[in-house]
């Protein structure tokens, strides 16, 4: 979402369009002049595929669309296309992302700059078509750069940034841009587009990766013995670690050109806060409203949005939270069998392991299968965390907020 400061920027030159995040993503793919799109319909992502089919059909995007027969084939097809030097895109959600799991590892292992959008959705069984973040959390070890967008505008901008990041020769890793299913994927918002000039100005087309070229043949996707495999995996890990600085500079350059930036993590009223709630995607804007209400009650609270999930921004996060007393981490996914049960909460806890001054981390699970969370629920969480801080009472296990039969 556009802050007032950003809207006043002089660099503004795009067109304003009412778009949901799915449409915004398709618009970005069009503006990025992608060559090959392969995607399979799945709720709540389907609008992306439909919109792209229309954009290609009416000639606004000059690309080949592959009507694949599964998500596994969608990602496989864009790997094939990327391997010959095309700029590629695919999109999915939930079960589709889970079906891609094998190929996710292969994409990053092959070091191909594939860009994918994910309209985050719960996983079966039982089936839920609604939002949570189980799908992307389960893919956290696949070596993809993972950006979580909070608005249709950010989804649009992040797709453009994703090509900038993925195709950087220092990176050459796939990028996943995710956003809340339904809550963002189907919500119409105000989006300022950049237009097709973005290709010349920001993401010029240049093949920076190894490709299958008949004039200079290579063998791609080889088999390795124990003598060689490890180094490739280490190189991948290093590239992912180092991509953080590329993500930052891509965002900064985007701001210089188009007046909008998002950073790695973002805080709201965090400077003097004692207690904060960290969340992702659409929850952040909700939490800002809740923060203002809680502050009216005299609670010194703030909120933090985690935008870049992989690579995990340890230092950026630490410098933002080090003066807090309590950090509540809202996860919309369950790391089954682990205590605490929030995947992001676990990431934060391990990132802080060797830090001296650090807040208490309170893991909170909420919004599973899009269980309703209203502003007053977020305010309630603030009140509870402040109370716990004052009483020095914390739960080692996660708070499963909103489960029927469990009270806090």
């Amino acid at each position, binding site marked *: *979402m*556009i*802050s*007032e400061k950003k*809207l006043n920027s002089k660099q503004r030159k795009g067109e*304003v*369009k*009412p778009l949901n995040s799915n449409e915004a993503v398709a618009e970005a793919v069009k503006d990025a002049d992608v060559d090959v799109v392969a995607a399979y319909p799945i*709720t*709540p992502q389907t609008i992306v595929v439909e919109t792209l089919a229309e954009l290609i059909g009416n000639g606004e995007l000059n690309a080949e669309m592959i009507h694949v027969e599964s998500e596994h084939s969608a990602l496989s097809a864009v790997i094939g296309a990327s391997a010959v030097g095309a700029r590629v895109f695919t999109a999915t959600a939930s079960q589709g992302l889970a079906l891609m799991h094998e190929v996710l590892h292969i994409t990053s292992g092959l070091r191909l700059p594939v860009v994918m959008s994910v309209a985050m959705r719960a996983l079966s069984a039982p089936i839920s*078509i*609604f939002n949570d973040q189980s799908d992307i959390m389960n893919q956290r070890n696949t070596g993809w750069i993972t950006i979580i967008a909070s608005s249709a505008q950010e989804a649009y901008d992040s797709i453009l940034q994703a090509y900038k990041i993925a195709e950087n020769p220092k990176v050459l890793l796939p990028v996943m841009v995710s956003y*809340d*299913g*339904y*809550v*963002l994927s*189907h*919500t*119409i*918002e*105000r989006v300022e587009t950049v237009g097709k000039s973005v290709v010349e100005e920001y993401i010029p087309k240049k093949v920076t990766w190894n490709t299958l070229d008949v004039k200079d043949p290579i063998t791609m996707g080889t088999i390795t013995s124990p003598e060689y495999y490890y180094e490739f995996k280490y190189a991948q890990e290093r590239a992912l670690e180092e991509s953080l600085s590329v993500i930052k500079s891509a965002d900064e350059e985007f701001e210089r050109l188009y007046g909008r930036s998002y950073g790695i993590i973002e805080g709201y009223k965090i400077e003097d806060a004692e207690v904060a709630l960290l969340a992702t995607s*659409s929850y952040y*804007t*909700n939490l*800002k*409203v809740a923060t203002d209400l809680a502050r009216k009650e005299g609670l010194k609270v703030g909120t933090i949005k985690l935008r870049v999930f992989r690579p995990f921004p340890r230092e950026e996060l630490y410098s933002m939270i080090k003066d807090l007393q309590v950090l509540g981490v809202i996860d919309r996914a369950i790391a089954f069998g682990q205590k605490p049960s929030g995947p992001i909460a676990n990431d934060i806890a391990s990132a802080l392991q060797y830090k001296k001054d650090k807040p208490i981390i309170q893991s909170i699970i909420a919004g599973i299968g899009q269980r*309703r*969370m*209203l*502003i007053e629920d977020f305010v309630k969480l603030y009140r509870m965390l402040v109370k716990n801080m004052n009483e020095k009472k914390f739960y080692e296990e996660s708070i499963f907020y909103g489960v029927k039969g469990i009270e806090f």
Partner: protein
Amino acid sequence: MYPFQEELLNKDIIEVTWLGRGGQGAVTASELVAMSAIKEGKNAIAIPEFGAERRGVPVRAYTRVSKELKEIHKTPIVNPDIFVLLDPSLLSKAKNYIDLKDDGVVIANTQLSKDEAIKVMGIKVKEENFFVIDAKSIVMRILGRPIYNTVMVGAFIAIVPIVKLETVLESVRETFKGKLGDLNAQVIEEGYKHFLKK
């Protein structure tokens, strides 16, 4: 000018809940208002409540409009400033879906009189904030089908003028191409005129 308009239009964010049945276009109604507001340089969002829409199922959709380019949060709207009822058969069930704000406005599609409708609906609402319209007679005449969303959008912008009629007509023509767009534009105008007269 309706007496509540000034205060309502001065709010940072106006919250609207639309209630209809699957296939009646509650989502499109919420989007038409948001699209139009965005066109006019305001900020707005339109959120559909149900993902897998099926014909007949009660469907809520929400619109939030900010007259400035203020950031807008994305929770469902359970206590709206304005409640628009698209389907007459949901009148008695509406209270299960919303908790109207004090000073809230209700625009209901019903053949009942205002007094009867307030009674059937059974919620706390000021009489001067309650509006009824028999949308069926309008849409059957123009569209020939009981699709109530556009007439209710017309009614809405007459009662709560956060966007201009012309902008909404432009939006509806973008949403529905060709003849369907023209017919729906006509329906919106009818709904609009219905409350402008008073």
